[in-house]
């Protein structure tokens, strides 16, 4: 078990008139090799939750265990804090806003050098990961500020990937990207998952949950409203009332309600849904 979240609550500005309870008694596990998606409305506390996983934020009550050790203990010493941050890599929402170096190479190497790697070595590693996110050599010496939005985001992600974390957490990595960049990025994340990384991803996009995840948590009003597999998720009527169901699943659900024999969980794309419709039509009653 990679990460264990035990009865975690979090309150912003406690003991003031502006106090706001973002998370209430949330418990879950993230297993090695998971592709977890954390979903829920804006302001439901998802971002707060992921910031706790690498010790940037501490729970007001409850605890988070990474490799069976409390994050509070991890973060007691600078040295172990760094180990934790390296083990659990967190890509923030709109990470393109964290770029600051003169060249992309330097920016990607920033984290590595912070974690004590020699410059030469760090640049080598940075090169490797810039290529990995799908940018070519010509980008090494470019300034991050002359890139497009999608490219900037790739650079920012390369900066975290270069740290070679065991668990990669991404907070709404596809927000604001156009369909093409979105697909590129999701393919990259899938590739990383196939290579053995544990992935946790905050998203509003239910198609990602359907297509890629093996584990999904729905945070609603600060509570873990649902915690299970996507297959259970999309057939749960209570859940489907809260979330924006992907259109293909909505359509499949409508067909099923009508009495057409459709497996909602197999309707992952237009193609697979159309196949099912064809099968149903071909079948004799």
């Amino acid at each position, binding site marked *: 078990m990679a990460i264990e979240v035990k009865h975690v609550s979090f309150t912003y500005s406690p003991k003031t008139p502006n106090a706001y309870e973002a998370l209430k008694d949330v418990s879950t596990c993230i297993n090695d090799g998971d592709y977890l998606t954390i979903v829920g409305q804006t302001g439901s506390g998802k971002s707060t939750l992921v910031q706790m996983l690498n010790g940037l934020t501490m729970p007001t009550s409850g605890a988070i265990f990474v490799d069976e050790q409390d994050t509070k203990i991890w973060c007691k010493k600078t040295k172990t804090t760094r180990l934790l941050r390296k083990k659990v890599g967190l890509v923030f929402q709109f990470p393109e806003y964290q770029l600051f170096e003169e060249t992309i190479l330097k920016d990607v190497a920033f984290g590595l050098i912070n974690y004590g790697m020699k410059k030469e070595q760090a640049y080598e590693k940075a090169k490797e990961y810039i290529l990995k996110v799908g940018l070519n050599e010509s980008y090494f010496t470019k300034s991050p500020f002359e890139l497009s939005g999608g490219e900037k985001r790739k650079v920012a992600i390369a900066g975290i990937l270069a740290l070679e974390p065991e668990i990669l957490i991404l907070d709404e990595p596809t927000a604001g990207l156009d369909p093409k960049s979105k697909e590129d990025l999701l393919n990259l994340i899938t590739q990383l998952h196939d290579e053995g990384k544990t992935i946790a991803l905050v998203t509003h996009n239910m198609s990602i949950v359907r297509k890629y995840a093996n584990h999904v948590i729905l945070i609603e009003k600060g509570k873990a409203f649902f915690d299970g597999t996507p297959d259970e998720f999309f057939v749960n009527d209570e859940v489907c009332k809260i979330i924006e169901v992907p259109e293909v699943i909505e359509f499949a659900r409508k067909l099923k309600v009508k009495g057409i024999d459709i497996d909602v969980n197999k309707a992952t794309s237009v193609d697979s849904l*159309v196949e099912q419709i064809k099968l149903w039509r071909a079948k004799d009653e």
Partner: protein
Amino acid sequence: MKKIEVKNLKFAYNSKETVINGLNFSVEAGKYVSILGHNGSGKSTLAKLLMGLLVPGSGEIFVDGKLLSSETVDEIRLKMALVFQNPDNQFIGSTVEEDVAFGLENRKVPQKEMHDIIFKYLRLVGMEEFYDKEPSNLSGGQKQRVAIAGALALNPDILILDEATSMLDPKGKREINELINSLRDVNPELTIISITHDVNEALFSDEIVLISSGKVSKVATPEEIFSDEALLTKNNVISPFVYQIKNRLIDMGIDASNCKTMDEMVELIWQSK
């Protein structure tokens, strides 16, 4: 009547790359037109050009038959209102009502009349009860609704939406799209130009101007554009779900060409056996 006419418009931020490269299209009065294209197709630049915030490299923009130039820009701007992409960076007032008031103050609307105008439009966008809230207490979707109220309060002929929903979550997107559609019932004379990469948003417009690398690829109804799969692939656009299904059903031999909604198609499939 042509409300806006764009003739051979060109624009470049620097000598290296031309963002808009000979754009030609026109918008009829009272129509809802989507300008659809993927990121980097020069859409946002177009919004600023239409509003006179940028000066074209060459080519002309006519509004109500009048050429947009440094002499006419102030007069023409009175007819237009623009809603931008980022909800935070266009919220100028300290509270909801003061933000709507900002444009009115600039237009020298007498103080006594402002309150009624502000609340009329806040009611229209469903933000009336939030009138004294500060932007930090509002969601992205709510801020965009305030921005739309602020734009409409200026009583424009033309409302330009520049990727107004692209930074919102699905709920916010849906709310804003519903609001824009409802505006047409409230004021049928309003010309709406929506610049977007979201096909589901473009679906509701009267006409789509499909642009790619700074040029117009095609101007047609959503129906025509989304049925033409070759055109969409060429322009890197994925068609809306209902059209994807519709095209598949037609391939299957089910005549779904008149279907507009999922429910109609479900019914058709049910009857097809």
